[in-house]
């Protein structure tokens, strides 16, 4: 069973009291427990079961402007005492940093909304197995599918965040995730693709038949790929890839990158960084949202931010420390964005495909070719060549490259946004990027 609030609170206050007693001027404690159970299948037979029960505590102690931190998975009082003493001793010899401080009291979250993030349903492993069996049967109907790997994970978490200014809050959350990875083979090639579903509530996850069918179809479509020639060509990014640009954007507008001067978006607030049709929103209070948060990792209240309005950058993602450095108030984004998304564009998915006679449609990228200092972007890609709105053939072993400064201004979004992840984007087209191939 997941640890209850009372237990977590008692550990948090034990630590805060002890830190105070030793002489810490301030302290923050986070205590969490997470239990997850996974069952995995491979080729229609049981492959693995995995149960995980994790406790974690992290403590930051301050002596005025000096700070240091410890973390542990061992919650026995005796161990905590040793660690807090060590933390306090370390704090003493750590140099001062004028920006170190707890969040401003008036910014701390007061009213904790119920965002319906916890579903207490428990699915026995046998029931998980029934779900996966249906899923794998559907995924392996076509003979070209030579391997299937599927899993079902149920996760329940609870946490408490407490600080020496009297903040003490936390809440439970849950997730139910099913995934299917399929491998298809023909005389020319072997390809892999996947589909998955993840929701806070059990009843909201996709039907297993649908999941298996989509995984298999997407994989078979990739067989016998060709390499195309190097070219400047319009690229459409499937939703599972286009959301990645939002994650990069979030990294580049985090107050820490801005304060350190290591972001290509430094000093760009109130400037046009996207084309004027683009709006980006970060909404923390989405009911059942995968990224929903009642407060950030410092206890600061979170409110909806219109990060980009008509292409103009309005806000950074600000935490207390870097906010003080930049002379900005925390907007509750210590720990990053919440439910981050592009608002829908005006054009339909079908019309987007038809918008140019020749388009590269990217379904997967590999590599870590994103440089947030310069905005340079270069990754390996897999996808399809689309001609006059029709998928002609699969493409692989190519790279795509550009620079975010130009790419962001050349984005066209379709109107097919859905909330599948914590970061979500409609299908996206970018003009003017370079494809390197033959």
């Amino acid at each position, binding site marked *: 069973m997941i640890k209850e609030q009372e237990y977590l609170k008692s550990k948090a206050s034990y630590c805060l009291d002890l830190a105070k007693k030793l002489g810490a001027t301030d302290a923050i404690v986070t205590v969490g427990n997470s239990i997850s159970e996974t069952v995995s299948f*491979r080729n229609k*037979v049981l*492959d*693995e*079961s*995995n*149960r995980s*029960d*994790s406790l974690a505590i992290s403590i930051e102690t301050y002596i005025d402007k000096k*700070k*240091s*931190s*410890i*973390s*542990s*998975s061992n919650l026995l009082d005796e*161990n905590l005492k040793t*660690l807090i003493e*060590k*933390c306090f001793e*370390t704090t003493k*010899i*750590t*140099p001062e*940093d004028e920006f170190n401080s707890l969040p401003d009291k008036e910014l701390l979250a007061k009213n904790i909304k119920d965002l319906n993030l916890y579903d207490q349903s428990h699915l026995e*492993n046998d029931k998980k197995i029934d779900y996966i069996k249906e899923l794998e049967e559907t995924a392996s109907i076509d003979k070209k599918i030579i*391997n299937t*790997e599927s899993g079902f994970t149920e996760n329940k978490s609870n946490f408490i965040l407490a600080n020496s200014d009297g903040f003490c809050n936390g809440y439970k959350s849950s997730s139910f995730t099913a995934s299917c990875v399929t*491998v298809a083979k023909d005389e020319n*090639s*072997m390809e*892999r693709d996947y589909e998955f579903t993840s929701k806070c509530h059990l009843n909201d996850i996709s039907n297993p038949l649908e999941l298996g069918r989509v995984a298999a179809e997407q994989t078979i479509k990739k067989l016998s*790929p060709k*390499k195309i020639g*190097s*070219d400047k060509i319009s690229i459409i990014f499937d939703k599972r890839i286009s959301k990645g640009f939002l994650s990069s954007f979030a990294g580049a507008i985090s107050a820490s990158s801005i304060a*350190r*001067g*290591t972001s290509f978006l430094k000093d760009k607030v109130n400037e046009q960084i996207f084309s004027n049709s683009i709006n980006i929103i970060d909404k923390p209070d989405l009911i059942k949202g995968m990224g929903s948060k009642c407060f950030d990792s410092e206890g600061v209240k979170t409110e909806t931010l219109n990060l980009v309005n008509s292409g103009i950058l309005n806000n950074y993602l600000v935490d207390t420390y870097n906010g003080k450095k930049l002379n900005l108030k925390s907007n509750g984004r210590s720990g990053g964005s919440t439910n981050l998304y592009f608002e829908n564009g005006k054009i339909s998915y079908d019309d987007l495909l038809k918008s140019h006679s020749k388009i590269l449609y990217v379904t997967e990228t*590999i*590599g*870590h*070719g994103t*440089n947030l*200092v*310069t905005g*340079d972007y*270069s*990754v*390996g890609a*897999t996808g399809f060549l689309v001609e006059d709105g029709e998928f002609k053939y699969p493409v*692989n*072993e*190519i*790279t795509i*490259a*550009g620079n975010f400064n130009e790419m962001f201004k050349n984005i066209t979004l379709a109107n097919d946004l859905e909330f599948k992840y914590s970061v979500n984007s409609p299908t996206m087209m970018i003009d003017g990027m*370079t494809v*390197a*191939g033959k």
Partner: protein
Amino acid sequence: MTNFFDKTDLTRKNVDEIISETLKNCDDGELYLEDSKSESILLDDNKIKSSNYSSDLGFGLRAISNEVVAYSHSNEISKESLKSSSQNLRSTLKSSKGTYNHEIPKTNNKFYDEINPIEQKTLNSKLEVLNKVNEYLRNKDSTVKQVTASFSGEQKSIEIIRLGGEALTDVRPLIRFNVSVMLEKNGRKETGVYGIGGRQSYDDYLKNDNWKNVCEEALRIASVNLESKPAPAGEMKVVLGPGWPAILIHEAIGHGLEGDFNRKKTSAFHDLMGQKVASEGVTIVDDGTIDKRRGSLTIDDEGTPTERTVLIENGILKNFMQDRLNGRLMNTRSTGSGRRENYKHIVLPRMRNTMMLSGKQTQDEMIKSVDKGIFAVSFGGGQVDITSGKFVFNCTEAYEINNGKIGSPIKGATLIGDGPSILKEVSMVGNDMMMDPGIGTCGKAGQGVPVGVAQPSILIDKMTVGGTKI
């Protein structure tokens, strides 16, 4: 060595009984216990940004029946917690009728000392080095706009208890020292990163003010990048420098030769054993036995002593890397490659120090033979799609080659290639094999483990360079 049952309600006899109850009808499995202490100290933006100490304790109980793995882990080492894990495993494997394989090789070799690097250097002296790094770089060059330097160190003690009570232990130190510098000149910003590390004390790596060399190297890479031009796009010849660029071997070949992907037939190499997969003269080994290296292990995370496994010999595919499970199912043995990030994860066959051995040519000969291509000296991360065999990696320092001569530096570009065929495109192997500086972490299935790589300079006849200049 940690006594895991001290201060618990468990005696060693209780533990053996629970293990026996759990594993008696299984083919394999063990109780894995882990106690790790780690620290990270970070200087950034002229200040000590964070100093963190962490202590993590936990166990993982694993039972294997034929192909099925049941695993349960927890932080609470207690009778109740261990019994509940045992119950969870038995409910998954209720119809198991296996025979436990007791066989496990033994070793007297040790590839590192049982030290705790965190305690061997005082916090004050670590802070002092970080501050010196910051001052040194900022005084050295007025274009230096940002300096980040960090120490990270850990000591991990593990104990593996098998059915029948056999216990295997290991104490593993690991450190890393890293410097990153950002330069700004004429509105342009570029970074350079360099680091060193391995399984010794901090001071073993920082002798004779060696931190200065780390600073110089980070600064040099950043300076080169300040002058870089857009990279070319398309297929061309690529010369790789020695050392760290061997992550190409790691991504392109290494992952595809891990036992699990081959047993499951999802690797592009699964039906190529004994066949020619590389040019003549190409020999690749994965070695866990090199003294004090980042990827070395005395025993792996199943208790098997590590070894030097020949993967490709003179172009011919000889062996896969195996853990106990995949070795048994493929009718071979473990190569001591069973690893896990920590007790929260199941064991997978993984790489240790993956190395391409030296050949006869010189780097000069390679460069001279190229009319148009690139010379890649250092890389950031890489990634591979095991199934299609396609892999990428990102250059962090590279130059154009024109008519046999090294030209201007080029901007970070992604290189993409095909794993099963890339080694057949290797037309020259250098005589200058070098190990990486001890900085690699390999990710697989959400688990990161420390690894090493090594290679000589090599010439690849055809690879796709992902620049912007057509």
